[in-house]
């Protein structure tokens, strides 16, 4: 997915300039430019002599090529080389200039001469010949194509095709169906019927380590791992007999019989029986529940459910219920915030919005919502950990905010979910299987904007905040979170394509029937989960997911594929160093009261390091106490929640903005240094194992060092030079990905080449040579 591009000079012919400043297409007919197609992918329409815009103010760097619309993506094929690209993110599924149809947010066509502009929607007519096509993407990119030299009719046809195919009338028209059928079920050929996700390697892949929670055994293992002995797997929803949007297997209190549950289910919205999420080692459980439709039954049912949960608690302690609809922003609020944030991040003109940047971020309210979710989750963590009571998350449908809050709580409480496999299993458990409506919330079919909401991204942002505050507590990096967020827009993986497991099963069955594909399997058609990262990225590139600071803990997290039961270990690397830093920020060591005269040197301390005398609330007291001690990275993690602690996730939101890219800077430069050190440590550990195992120096040539790290140590010396291609957008490149219309400003090359502002004309002239 990533490759370093050497800047190559390209040879081009130019026509005598007719319109100044506009680059002309090559005179010669281009050699055949062919789209790279995936199995099952077909070209719908295409147009030649298209110019992809790279910079806003000049066409000098534009690329000439062919624009193709397939049933999966918009593809731009060119022989031209893009300059200034320092590093390019590459997926096996997509080319450099490709945009998956599901990633399209809005299609705008423009005719300059007629001064017309139109947002294209499926099955609409376009009354003018477009001279320009602007694609606004869900991942914040803005891509522009010019049709000045292209056949007007073909250009129009391609635009209409894109509009049509990006708004499929039916779920089964999403490309994934065709693709999966071709790749895994080659029309009746049973030989090819490999279980998607199976790698066949001796080492268990990340994907295999990730339980999908579609089998009772996955739930059983989770019950054992968390020591939830008073809870059991329930299979009354097998074949979706009870609820269409619950998973087939879930976990309930031991004291509730299947019969009771069947009876209860009819009173709950969506027939959703309360679901167990997780157990604390102190016995408190986290449960999620839909609202009770029938007002008459409400009290009685509430009592029954609470009583059963209480009975499953070792101390029979009370249940705390949190109404998420009342305490958190609605999904519409979140969507509005997101839209405003997009406006501020990529749409508003850069220079003009500088002065108001902070307040426009505040006005979007996105960070406020991030903080709000973290805060609410932390309060509930206090209930589970501090008050040792079970918690019920209640939401009208139990399919939106409960997914977010329950996963956040678990990330804070259980270090297992901070490993990559654990985190993936958490998403599988609390989002996919719990029936988060990915299809509707992502609006893959562009059916209803009202249903669209970036709840999942909000969750990733919350996790990112924790990652920034506790950089060594997570096995993954922000690149992992970003790539995960981007994968929402690939209609190939089961994970983000459906509203619930039942929908997947139903559509797969129908699809198989309609195509008369024989699978010879009880499951009709199986999509690969996104966790099979090898579908998208090379082994080497997946190493960018690994957090170098996590070294030393990875081994204890997963052993022999099964996860060891979750216990709070006292061992903590951070303790010692945290202590020494206390002079900066409080935490005075006890005996150091009146320092001796010769230690007059100022050592400033915070005003206090202790619990307040009169804390506002018990939870506040709990937090204060927790913060006064060094954090155990393998234990509970609480977020710091001052407004100044909540940051904008720049890698995600600003990676395409050329003006924001820092060359040879940004957090990645620290990441590089840490990776190299972590790699050295791994090499040493490996050597140590070899010596100990073999018992002699000579025996056995050292096996090739398998590194977790993307950046490797060249040898065991300190100096690994920093690669020149590192930028704050790494591993992404803003070149050609954020091309707003005709905004005057400094040429893109200046931003990407180094200096950023107010370059005098003289400098520009000399650089243009």
């Amino acid at each position, binding site marked *: 997915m990533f490759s370093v591009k050497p800047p190559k000079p390209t040879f081009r012919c130019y026509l005598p300039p007719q319109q100044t400043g506009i680059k002309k297409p090559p005179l010669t007919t281009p050699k055949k430019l062919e789209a790279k197609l995936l199995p099952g992918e077909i070209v719908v329409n295409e147009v030649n002599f298209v110019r992809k815009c790279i910079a806003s103010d000049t066409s000098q760097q534009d690329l000439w090529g062919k624009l193709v619309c397939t049933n999966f993506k918009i593809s731009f094929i060119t022989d031209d080389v893009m300059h200034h690209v320092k590093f390019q993110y590459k997926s096996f599924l997509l080319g450099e200039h490709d945009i998956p149809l599901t990633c399209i947010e809005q299609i705008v066509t423009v005719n300059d001469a007629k001064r017309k502009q139109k947002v294209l929607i499926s099955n609409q007519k376009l009354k003018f010949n477009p001279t320009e096509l602007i694609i606004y993407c869900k991942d914040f990119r803005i891509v522009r194509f010019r049709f000045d030299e292209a056949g007007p009719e073909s250009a129009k046809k391609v635009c209409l095709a894109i509009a049509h195919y990006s708004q499929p009338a039916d779920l089964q028209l999403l490309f994934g169906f065709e693709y999966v059928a071709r790749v895994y079920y080659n029309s009746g050929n049973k030989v090819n019927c490999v279980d998607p996700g199976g790698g066949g390697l001796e080492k268990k892949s990340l994907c295999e380590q990730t339980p999908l929670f579609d089998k009772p055994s996955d739930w059983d293992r989770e019950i054992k791992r968390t020591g939830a002995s008073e809870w059991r797997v329930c299979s009354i929803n097998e074949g979706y007999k009870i609820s269409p949007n619950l998973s087939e297997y879930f976990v309930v209190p031991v004291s509730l019989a299947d019969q009771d549950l069947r009876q209860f289910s009819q009173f709950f919205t969506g027939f959703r029986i309360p679901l167990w999420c997780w157990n604390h080692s102190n016995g408190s459980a986290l449960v999620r529940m839909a609202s009770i439709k029938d007002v008459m039954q409400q009290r009685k049912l509430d009592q029954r459910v609470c009583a059963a949960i209480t009975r499953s608690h070792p101390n029979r302690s009370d249940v705390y219920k949190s109404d998420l609809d009342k305490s958190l922003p609605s999904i519409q609020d979140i969507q509005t915030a997101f839209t405003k944030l997009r406006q501020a991040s990529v749409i508003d003109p850069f220079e003009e919005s500088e002065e108001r940047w*902070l307040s426009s971020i505040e006005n979007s309210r996105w960070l406020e919502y991030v903080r709000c979710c973290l805060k609410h989750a932390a309060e509930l963590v206090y209930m589970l950990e501090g008050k040792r009571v079970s918690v019920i998350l209640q939401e009208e449908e139990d399919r939106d905010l409960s997914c977010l809050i329950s996963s956040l709580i678990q990330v804070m409480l259980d270090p297992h979910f901070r490993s990559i496999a654990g985190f993936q299993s958490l998403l599988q458990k609390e989002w996919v299987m719990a029936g988060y409506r990915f299809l509707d919330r992502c609006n893959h079919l562009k059916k209803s904007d009202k249903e669209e909401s970036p709840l999942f991204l909000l969750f990733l942002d919350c996790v990112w905040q924790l990652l920034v505050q506790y950089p060594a507590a997570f096995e993954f990096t922000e690149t992992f979170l970003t790539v995960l967020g981007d994968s929402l827009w690939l209609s190939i993986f089961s994970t983000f394509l459906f509203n619930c497991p039942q929908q997947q099963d139903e559509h797969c069955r129908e699809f198989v029937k309609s195509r008369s594909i024989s699978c010879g399997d009880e499951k009709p058609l199986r999509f690969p989960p996104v966790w099979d990262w090898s579908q998208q990225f090379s082994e080497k590139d997946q190493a960018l997911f690994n957090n170098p600071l996590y070294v030393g803990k990875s081994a204890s997290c997963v052993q022999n594929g099964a996860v060891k039961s979750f216990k709070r270990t006292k061992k903590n690397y951070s303790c010692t160093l945290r202590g020494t830093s206390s002079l900066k920020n409080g935490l005075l060591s006890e005996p150091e009261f009146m320092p001796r005269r010769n230690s007059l040197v100022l050592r400033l301390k915070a005003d206090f390091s202790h619990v307040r005398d009169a804390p506002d609330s018990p939870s506040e007291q709990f937090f204060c106490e927790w913060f006064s001690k060094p954090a155990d990275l393998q234990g509970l993690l609480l977020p710091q929640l001052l407004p100044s602690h909540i940051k904008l996730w720049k890698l995600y939101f600003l990676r395409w903005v050329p003006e924001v890219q820092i060359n040879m800077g940004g957090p990645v430069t620290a990441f590089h240094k840490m990776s190299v050190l972590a790699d050295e440590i791994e090499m*040493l550990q490996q050597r140590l194992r070899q010596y100990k195992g073999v018992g002699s120096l000579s025996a056995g040539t050292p096996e090739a060092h398998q590194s977790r790290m993307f950046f490797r140590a060249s040898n065991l010396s300190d100096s690994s030079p920093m690669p020149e291609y590192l930028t704050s957008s790494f591993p992404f490149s803003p070149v050609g990905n954020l091309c707003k219309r005709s905004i005057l400003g400094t040429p893109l090359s200046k931003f990407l080449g180094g200096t950023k502002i107010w370059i005098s004309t003289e400098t520009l002239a000399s*650089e243009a040579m």
Partner: protein
Amino acid sequence: FSLIFKDVTYICPFMGMIRGTLTVTNYRLFFKRVEKDSAFVLDVPLGVISRIEKAGGALSRGEVSYVLVCKDIRNLKFAHKQDTQGRTSVFETVMKLAFPVSHNLQVFAYEYGQIYPENGWKVYDPSAEYKRMGLPNESWRMTRINEHYELCDTYPVMLLVPANIPDEDLKRVATFRAKNRIPVSLNMDITRECGQSRSVLSWIHPESQATVVRCSQPMVGANGKRSKDDEKYLQAIMDANAQSHKLFIFDARPSVNAVANKTKGGGFESEDAYQNAELVFLDIHNIHVMRESLRKLKEVVYPNIEESHWLSNLESTHWLEHIKLILAGALRIADKVESGKTSVVIHCSDGWDRTAQLTSLAMLMLDGHYRTVRGFQVLIEKEWLTFGHRFQMRIGHGDKNHSDADRSPVFLQFIDCVWQLTRQFPAAFEFNEFFLITILDHLYSCLFGTFLCNRAAKEDRFLWSYINSHLEEFLNPLYVNYSHHVLYPVVSMRHLELWVGYYIRWNPRMRLQEPIHHCYKELLLKRAELKKKVEELQRELISRSASSSSERAASPTRSVTPVQTFV
């Protein structure tokens, strides 16, 4: 000496009333909570106190309370029983000690005699620094014209000036520049004073020979006075760089202010008078605007942050906007020198506030040497201390006149800008955040003489001694020495952040800002440990294989069972 006062209450904005004992010495104020098991202490050097006020508010009868407004972004409120015998309050005593200058007493640093293993004076040796830059060379010569501060009392003794300008001419140039500050280059600042201009070299590009030259404003005045000598002098600066036939003059001020200065005899270079020179205004506001901005910032961050309007409140202080303009100016200068290979002359009005900010930041971007601990000390010595930044005037050490219009957070802004650079380039600086905070704390503490006066004088340099004796605490573990790399920060509000580790550090809810450094240090320890283990094993295996080979010769059937150990 020390005075001890019992039964004093510290009214903490975060935890409420704390009863304890207050100890006051001629250096600091020390408060300790009464209860034995509690570790609460306050340790405040008197130097940080900006003013002491009697405060009202709801108190129990017979109590008086005082607020100590501090220069390091906090206020401390104390209360104690009114003395029945009518003796003066503790805080009247404190007032005397905190403002020794106003009471004709000495600042503490002059009495402090700590000896450090390293002599801070050795940090900066001008000739060594010029030598590092290959100076003097055929174009630039060293002059001792200012040996007795006759040319300019706010300039260093040793100056670098264009080789073809004789000392007599320098004197004439000086009269055309404000406060005699001719343009001197890269560290050449020429003092231009009262109708005289001299620029002095600050830095020279190792390859292109483009120079950074600093000075004060030309004394053009309302009548547009010209100085042939000053013009010739700037021409000489341009000629010293063969790569470019242009010279850029950066005036740090907004153009309106520069014009307004004409009525006071000052002004700016007209492009008619200075052939081949291009004048650029950098729009950085004056000390009064900056002081006001910091005042607002303090209101926003101390003691509590308003939850719902944090960002817009921050925006309304304009603090980051000012930081942005300073960094943007420095970036333009660095770009001119690096990409344009052009020499630049920088000035504001007097050439010791904004000019110092700009030259030192530009030099940090251009030259990796200044990004080391020692290099940074040299930079402060060179651009701030020897070129006469008025520390005493801007900070007001020991002076009770808190509303003095000459006070301004010029140096704090510079350090804030440096912090912003360290955020954007986490591996480019040898020092860490704690180093910057320590420098700022001792800017006010009056423990060391480093920042006490208005120009480089006989004061001590114990701050450097102290820091260099405790180097480990101030190092950035992620530092990569890419000294030849020019830093081009992105000067945008998207990247500028409030330095919470400094401005919000008194809030107990703020924790460590650089957890990555700590994690990294742990990894370093781990690596060292592993290295040791591997080496031990290697040695052991070598000796064992030597002995076993001899054993094997005797009994060939024996084999060594490997010991299985888990790491």
